[in-house]
């Protein structure tokens, strides 16, 4: 139901957007990261993993921005 913008370019670019959603769902599975080991610099996995995820998501969003921008 998104607005049809017409140009075939838009439809090809739109498939990149799903990358974003994969990233989202990753963080919604606490059992995966609810542990202390392996620790990084003494910080338990639970904490540094989620912080790392922030960086990863920012990079993904940046990538999608660049890839879907109108030329």
């Amino acid at each position, binding site marked *: 139901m998104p607005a049809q913008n017409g140009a075939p370019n838009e439809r090809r670019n739109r498939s990149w957007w799903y990358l974003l*959603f994969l990233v*989202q769902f990753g963080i919604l599975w606490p059992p995966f990261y609810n542990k*202390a080991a392996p620790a990084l610099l003494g*910080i338990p996995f639970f904490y540094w993993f989620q912080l790392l995820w922030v960086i990863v*998501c920012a990079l993904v969003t940046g990538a999608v921005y660049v890839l879907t*921008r109108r030329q």
Partner: protein
Amino acid sequence: MPQVNWIALCVFVLLFAFITWLGFAAARWRKGDLDQLHEWGLGGRRFGTVVTWFLVGGDIYTAYTFIAVPALAFGAGAVAFFAVPYTILIYPLLFLVFPRLWSVCHKHGYITAGDFVRGRFGNRWLALAVTLTGIIATLPYIALQLVGIQVVVGALGVTGSGLAADLPLIIAFAVLAAFTYSSGLRAPASIAIVKDALIYVATFAIIIVVPWKLGGFGKIFAAVPPHKLLLAVPGPNSAGSYSAYATLALGSALALFLYPHSLTAILSASSGRAIRRNAAILPGYSFMLGLLAMVGLFVIAAGVSDLPQYAWGFKTFKNNFAVPALILHTFPSWFVGVAFAAIAIGALVPAAIMSIAVANLYTRNIHREFINRQPTDKQEAQMAKWVSLVAKVGALVFILFVPTKYAIQLQLLGGIWIIQTLPAVMLGAYTRWFNDWALLLGWAVGTFAGTAMAVATHLSSTYPLSLGGYQLPGYSALYTVVLNLAVVIVLTPLFNALGGRQGARDETLPADYGV
């Protein structure tokens, strides 16, 4: 009773004086006619990528966030870290939905969610529901920012009894009211730049100096009791803390941009492109918030809650005193002044934006809709200025005379209420398929169910949902918006059949949403 920390207080007052000047000077920044509502209330829509980064960041990462998230980590441990997945999930939403809203609002001169819903669905009652929800959800949030100021002022040792104790807060508030009245959104935008710089400096200083003083991260985390270090593993037949954590993150993420002050900050951007770029760079704030949540755990390791000099603070402000105590304990007085100024200023920015957002909503969607249908530009802007003042005074009165826990509970309810506008506002940016009366009914059902769930659990944010013997404790806001949407989806074809086609009442065109 604590002694006044004079050096810290001087630095604090100096920084405060600086931003007061800045708030008034902002009226001349990117000059525009402040008697026009979109100039006063949206900064003339001139804020590029960088300013938008500071404004939106300063808006969503509030003083209350910086006090309350570490306070929760200090008190309850790992569950406070839900703030990280929460602030990860908001960015895809920002990227996908809000450029569309920006575009259609820009095209049609909409400045609020109420304007958009009115134009998109042609139903003034649905627009009113969205408007009232926005106003009622925001007011307790303004009040809670003032709590942030109270905590740092108390931590500076400025105490007294009766009116004297409240005087610093009243002064801060008067300053806020004055420059918001004169400069509108430009005031918090300019101050946000200073505030965010200070917050980043303070956070990085804490995250480097405290572990260094306490002997490293390993030692700090070893001092945290095991039940606070990680999420509690759920028992059999229950998703326990896992579903609570995930639903709190997802529900909060969905609700955040529905708040009027978020939309105001976003609509003030100069283009959809600025918004998308910000979706990639705003996560810097999420990272900082994660660090702050960990700082809450540092407080446990530092043992400041057991020290006699902080006893008064912990007794008066409970867990909210965690971060101020750590700062007092770790840093020289002048830096304490800087850090506390960052927090206090960090309260003014969102409080200003929230009051402007409420003013915009009232002026456009209640006053212009139901009371005076043809205001002049000047009348509109003037009305908004007054309403923003009234909203702030109301918040101040509330904080001074009503126990803080009520503000917290109202804010929790506010989150449950605001998420009910999701179908109309967020999904409305994509499709007109929904029937407007179905949306209104869905909103009513969601609001009622959410309030009932909150009351049933004595205003805790999670509701112990049970599906076929399996426990899924989760955030009431998320469960009720799903219910809301289900109602809308079921009723839409029914109402369309009963009432005739909806397509005619939509003043927007598909092309309006393109960026």
